[in-house]
């Protein structure tokens, strides 16, 4: 079970109409109400119980592994829980996970927002539907297929891009390339960007659709161009929605397993350059070490999974905070 793709932001739902509010306030209860109340309350409690059970299980197994760890769990650049003495640490994994996800976000968010704006404000009506449908198809592709595509198509064709980045941006240090096969964090970032594009696009599109018509018409009436309308009314209104969409995408990127395991060339080393081998990701490491892991090795992997769990919680918490702070702008979150 993949714990890193918890959905914490519900899809935007329309505000209840005044009539409905009135009816709710009258507060008649019939058996149906009570049953439904019980069902929905039960679902909520069930979710909390499941999450608690996962957390307890992970913590117990992780504690077991940590007590055997001879290295520092947070700073060791090695993963050898089967060795004697067992030594393993997550520094490299945390680095790789965060860096590859950040690259993915940097690529995917602008493109996704662009697509969403195009679909809601620029594209002809007839084109909007099919395009949205194609983007949904992207989300339906299994990650292992992305992995295969990455290995067979993306990696062999990235030499040119890597060379170009190295030539013109090599001086920055983060785009230096020593000529290895292009299977570094940057490649993973590109692949993840494609994988998280649909979810960010869809949620952003829904949000932009909900911009009050009055705002836009008012801006138009003041003589604003279409771009100015988007800048003045659509983007401010949709900001928190886009942020929560991005966080959903980020959650996906952090936990992506199979595609990363197939494309990345992980090394237990941290490299300043994004184009040279350096770093792995939590999920990739679990996938590639699990088959041959001994009892202690498995516990060590679970401990690393717990760290990913915590990172995902932090990301989602931050997203919630941002949205809560900007609530006044938006009807886009429940």
């Amino acid at each position, binding site marked *: 079970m993949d714990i890193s793709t918890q959905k914490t932001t519900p899809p935007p739902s329309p505000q209840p109409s005044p009539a409905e509010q009135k009816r709710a306030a009258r507060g008649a209860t019939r058996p149906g109400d009570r049953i439904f109340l019980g069902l929905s309350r039960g679902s909520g409690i069930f979710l909390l119980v499941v999450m608690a059970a996962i957390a307890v299980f992970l913590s117990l197994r992780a504690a077991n592994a940590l007590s055997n760890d001879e290295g520092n769990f947070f700073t060791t650049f090695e993963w050898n829980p089967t*060795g004697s003495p067992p030594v393993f640490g997550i520094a490299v994994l945390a680095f790789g996970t965060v860096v590859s996800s950040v690259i993915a976000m940097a690529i995917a968010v602008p493109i996704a927002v662009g697509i969403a704006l195009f679909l809601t404000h620029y594209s002809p009506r007839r084109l909007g539907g099919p395009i949205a449908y194609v983007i949904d198809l992207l989300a339906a592709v299994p990650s292992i297929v992305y992995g295969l595509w990455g*290995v067979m198509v993306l990696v062999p064709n990235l030499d040119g891009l890597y060379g170009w980045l190295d030539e013109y941006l090599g001086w920055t240090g983060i785009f230096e390339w020593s000529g*290895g096969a292009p299977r570094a964090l940057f490649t993973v970032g590109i692949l993840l960007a494609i994988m998280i594009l649909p979810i960010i696009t869809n949620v952003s599109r829904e949000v932009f659709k909900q911009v009050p018509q009055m705002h836009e018409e008012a801006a138009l009436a003041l003589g604003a161009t279409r771009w100015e309308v988007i800048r003045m009314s659509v983007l401010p209104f949709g900001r928190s929605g886009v942020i929560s969409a991005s966080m959903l995408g980020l959650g996906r990127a952090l936990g992506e397993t199979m595609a990363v395991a197939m494309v990345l*060339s992980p*090394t237990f080393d941290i490299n300043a350059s994004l184009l040279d081998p350096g770093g792995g990701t939590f999920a990739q490491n679990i996938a590639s*070490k699990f*088959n*041959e892991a001994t009892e202690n090795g498995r516990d060590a992997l679970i401990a690393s999974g717990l760290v990913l769990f915590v990172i995902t919680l932090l990301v989602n918490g931050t997203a919630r905070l941002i949205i809560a702070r900007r609530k006044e702008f938006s009807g886009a979150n429940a």
Partner: protein
Amino acid sequence: MKLQRMNRRALTLGALAVSGALALTACGSDDTGGKSNGGDKTTPNASSVDCMDAKGQLQASGSSAQKNAVDAWIQSYSAACKDVQLNYNPTGSGAGVTAFLQGQTAFAGSDSALDPEEITESKKLCTDGQAIDLPMVVGPIAVGFNVPGVEKLVLDAPTMAKIFDDKIKNWNDEAIAKLNPDAKLPDLKIQATHRSDESGTTDNFTKYLSAAAPNDWKYEHGKSWEAKGGQSASGSSGVAQQVKQTAGAIGYMEMSYAKEGITSVSVKTGAAEPVDVNVANATKSLTEAKVVGTGKDLALELNYTPKAEGAYPITLVTYEIACDKGNKADTLPAVKSFLGYIASEDGQGQLEAAGYAPVPDEIIAKVRETIKGLS
């Protein structure tokens, strides 16, 4: 108004039905309908298969290195013994041994012999006995390379150790040139590729490096790669793919993956001539293996520095692991019958076609003896 409410209710019901159906199908088991038992028994067409009246399901899992061999065996065994349904799940050696020790499978396949802790643990499972290693498959490990313009490449253990340890970085290095006086070695960066997942192949390759080049390979052998630098890829197929598509790459993989456009290194051993990787050469080096297991355990210690002409030094042995005593009564006949078949001349004879080498005669004779005594 009423109509609307009706509609909404219908929608809700519909949604419930759909989600319910989805939930149900999500955890539906895929029923791989086994053949029904109790049909008329056909006479075994292969005389070497002794079915021992075994019946029912036989579950096994473990090493993915021997998967192709097991597939071939299951095919011919099932043709002879229709009452046994055999499933072998290539989960990886570690997972296979764990599943076996937890009593989920009848036997396991593993690229590494059991360690003392595992043997101790197995005494719980095997009443009055313990788990034992039965060497069954020999898999040569090829070192594939991709250097444009170089058709044949000779390397010795120290040079290979330096390449995989990132000490030799370019193909035109003197050490490589000295071993290959006739080759046109280009000025090209070496991209040594190792496995990113844990694997018995890595374990055996690093065992070879530390045995044959102790001065240049300072790392412990193990299932995970400890040296720094180089590239990595997941699975033998991933390494093969990487070698195929990257100029300057070199990587180790099971021999069955080193075909279709991958050329393999000839290894310079103590013998006069460099040795190519093939089935016959791998079997030659196995004749120098010693049994180091105690009692019925037939764990082998390979000789990674053979001096004989044509003995290829980089090999791995896959063991089948079962209890010597205290196997489950309902699976014992099937285990004895299947293992007996794969250790027979007929079973071992199928290995070459699948890209493996048979276990040498002396050792396989002991294996057959041990299987007869399983209880």
